C-alpha cells in the first residue's frame, strides 16, 4: 500500500496517442488510504481464506493419510502414496476418469453444436425470436439437482415418458439403472441445460461480429456457409475460448445430477463424487480424496491459465 498512484491512462502501443493528461496530485489522504485498503483487503482476505487456502490445503493433504476427524497430530505424511494407490489400485478411479472424459466430449460436441446452430438461426430478424429464446434459455435457471428429479420422471421404467414414447412399455428399459446407458441418459439431461447457455454465448458473439465483414465476404461471392465458417466463426475466437472454458469447468464440476440420481455409483462415478465421498459418503480418507481433488485442480488449471492469459493480456493492451 505504499505506492499509491492514480491510474495512468493505458496507452495503446500503436495508433494516435490519447489526450495527454497533466500530472495530477498523487497523494491520497491518510483516511482515504485506510478506507481503500479495507475495501480491497477485506474481500481479498475472505476470498483467499475460504477459496485459495483450502485449495492449497487439498494439495498438502493429498500427501497425507488422515481420517479428517482427529486433530492435526493424527496426520501421517506418506508422500505420493495416495497417487500411487489411486492410479494402480483404487477401482473407482479409472471409471470416473473415463466418465468425466465422456462427459466433457459429450458437452463439447452436442450442446456446443446445437447451441451454435440455434444461435445462428436466431441471429436475424425473426418474428417471435424473443419467445424462442425464452423457451431455450429456460432450463438454465434450474439447478442440476432439480433437473435430476425432473428427468427421472422421463426415464423411469415404471411409466416413464421415454419408454412410453418408444413403445417399450412392455419391456421397459431402465435408463437410469442400467450402468451401460445411464451415463448417456444423464448427459442428455445435462446437455438440455447446457445448450441454452452456449446459445446465449454465441448469440452475444454473433451480435459482436462486424456486419461489414460479412458484407465484404458476400461481395466477394462467398456463400452463406462459406462466410460463416471462413469469416464469422474465426472472428468469434474469444467466444469459442469462453465456450471451451465453461464447458471444461462444467464437466469437471458435474456432481449434483448424478448425486441425486444414485449418489454417483453404478455407472455414474465421477471424480467429483470420489472427492465428496470422503466427507459425506462412507469412505473417510481425506488424503486419497484430496489427491483426486488435486487431479481435478491440475486439469482445471490447464484451461484456467490459458483463459486468464487471453483475458488479461488483452486487457493490458487495450
Amino acid at each position, binding site marked *: 500500500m505504499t505506492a*499509491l498512484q492514480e491510474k495512468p491512462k493505458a496507452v495503446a502501443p500503436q495508433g494516435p496517442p490519447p489526450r495527454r493528461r497533466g500530472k495530477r496530485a498523487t497523494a491520497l489522504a491518510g483516511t482515504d488510504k485506510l478506507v481503500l485498503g479495507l475495501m480491497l483487503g477485506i474481500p481479498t482476505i475472505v476470498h483467499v481464506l475460504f477459496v485459495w487456502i483450502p485449495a492449497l490445503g487439498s494439495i498438502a493433504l493429498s500427501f497425507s493419510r488422515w481420517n*479428517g476427524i482427529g486433530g492435526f497430530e493424527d496426520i501421517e505424511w506418506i508422500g505420493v502414496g495416495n497417487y500411487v494407490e489411486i492410479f494402480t489400485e483404487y477401482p473407482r478411479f479409472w471409471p470416473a476418469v473415463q466418465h468425466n472424459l465422456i462427459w466433457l466430449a459429450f458437452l463439447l460436441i452436442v450442446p456446443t453444436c446445437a447451441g451454435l446452430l440455434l444461435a445462428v438461426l436466431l441471429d436475424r430478424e425473426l418474428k417471435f425470436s424473443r419467445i424462442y429464446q425464452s423457451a431455450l*434459455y429456460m432450463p438454465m435457471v*434450474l439447478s442440476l439437482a432439480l433437473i435430476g428429479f425432473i428427468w427421472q420422471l422421463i426415464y423411469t421404467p415404471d411409466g416413464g*415418458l421415454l419408454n412410453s414414447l418408444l413403445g417399450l412399455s412392455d419391456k421397459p428399459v431402465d435408463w437410469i439403472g442400467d450402468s451401460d446407458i445411464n451415463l448417456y441418459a444423464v448427459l442428455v439431461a445435462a446437455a438440455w441445460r447446457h445448450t441454452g447457455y452456449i446459445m446465449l454465448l454465441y448469440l452475444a458473439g454473433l451480435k459482436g461480429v462486424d456486419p461489414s465483414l460479412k458484407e465484404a465476404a458476400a461481395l466477394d461471392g462467398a456463400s452463406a456457409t462459406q462466410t460463416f465458417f471462413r469469416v464469422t466463426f474465426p472472428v468469434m475466437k474469444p467466444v469459442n475460448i469462453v465456450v471451451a472454458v465453461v464447458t471444461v469447468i462444467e464437466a469437471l464440476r458435474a456432481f449434483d445430477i448424478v448425486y441425486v440420481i444414485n449418489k454417483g455409483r453404478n455407472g455414474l462415478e465421477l471424480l467429483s463424487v470420489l472427492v*465428496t465421498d470422503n*466427507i459425506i459418503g462412507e469412505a473417510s480418507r481425506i488424503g486419497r480424496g484430496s489427491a483426486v481433488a488435486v487431479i*481435478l485442480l491440475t486439469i482445471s488449471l490447464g484451461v484456467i491459465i490459458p483463459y486468464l492469459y487471453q483475458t488479461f493480456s488483452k486487457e493490458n493492451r487495450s
Partner: protein
Amino acid sequence: MTATLERPSVPVVKKRTVTPARVALHTFLILTCLMTLAPLLWAVYASLRTYDDTSVNGYFSIAKSLTLENFAKAWEIGDLPHFYWNTFLITIPALIITLLLSSMVAFGVSRFSFKFNLALLMIFTAGNLLPQQVVVTPLWRLYRLIEVPEWISASGSLIDSQLGVILIHIAFQSGFCTFVLSNYMKTIPYELTEAARVDGASVFRQYWQLTLPLCRPVLAALATLEFTWIYNDFLWALVLIQDGDKMPVTSALQNLKGTFFTDNNLIAAGSLLVALPTLVVFFVLQRQFVGGLTLGSTKG
C-alpha cells in the same frame, strides 16, 4: 465479454414475404422449443394427476381429472415453507454481501493503479473457475476449527451453520462478480471520479455515491444471476450442513425424495415448487439474467 448490457433491439417494421425457408425455420424452432419445454411440461402434467389415476392408467395416458392436491401435499409433507425460509436466510445475505465486497474490489482495481491490480483480479477470476471439489474437503475441516458463538451455530463452529454456507458463497461468488464489475467500471469515464476528487470527495464517497449508482444495470444483472446460482447451490450446503433441518430447499430435495417415497406425482409437484422461485425470477427478470451471463461469460 464486452461490458455493455444487451440493449433492447429496436423493432423494425418491414413487410416480409412468406418464403418456404422462413416456414421451415419457424417449424424447426417451434419443434425445438417444444422439445426443450417438454420435460418441464411433463412434470407439470404428472404433478396435476392423482396417484390413483397414474397407478392404474400409467403416466402416458389422458388424465381422468386434474388437481392441485399434490402441490398442497408436497408443501405440507415436505415442510417446504421451513426450507424456503432456510434458503432465504442464506441467499439474501450472501447475495448482498457478495455484491458489496466485489464492487469494492472492482472499484479499487479499476479506479486506482496499484502494482498488484492485475494479480488481484486474476486471483478472483481464477478462484471462481475452480471446481468446488478442490476446495471442499479442507474447507469442511477448516469450518470445524473456526469457533463461533452458540447463538449463531448450535455446533459452536462454522460447520453445520448457515453462516458457514453464506461465507463460502460470498467467497466463491465474489470472484465472478469482481471480474464483471471491474470490467464494467473500467468503461466509466475516468474524468468523473477525478472531478469528484478535485472537489474533495473522499474515496468512499467516490465509490458509494458516484460509482455504484452508475453500476445499477450491471448490479441488477448480477443480483439476478447470483440469486439463481446461490438458490440452486446443492454441493456447499450438502457438505457443510449435516443437520437436515437447516438445509436450504435445493439440498433438502434429496431428503424429500425419501419422504415422498416413490410417489412420482408428489416428487414432480415438489420439484416444481422448488423450481418456482427461479422460474419466476427468470420470467420477470430475463433481460437481467441474460445480460449478466453475457457480461461475464466465465461461469459454468
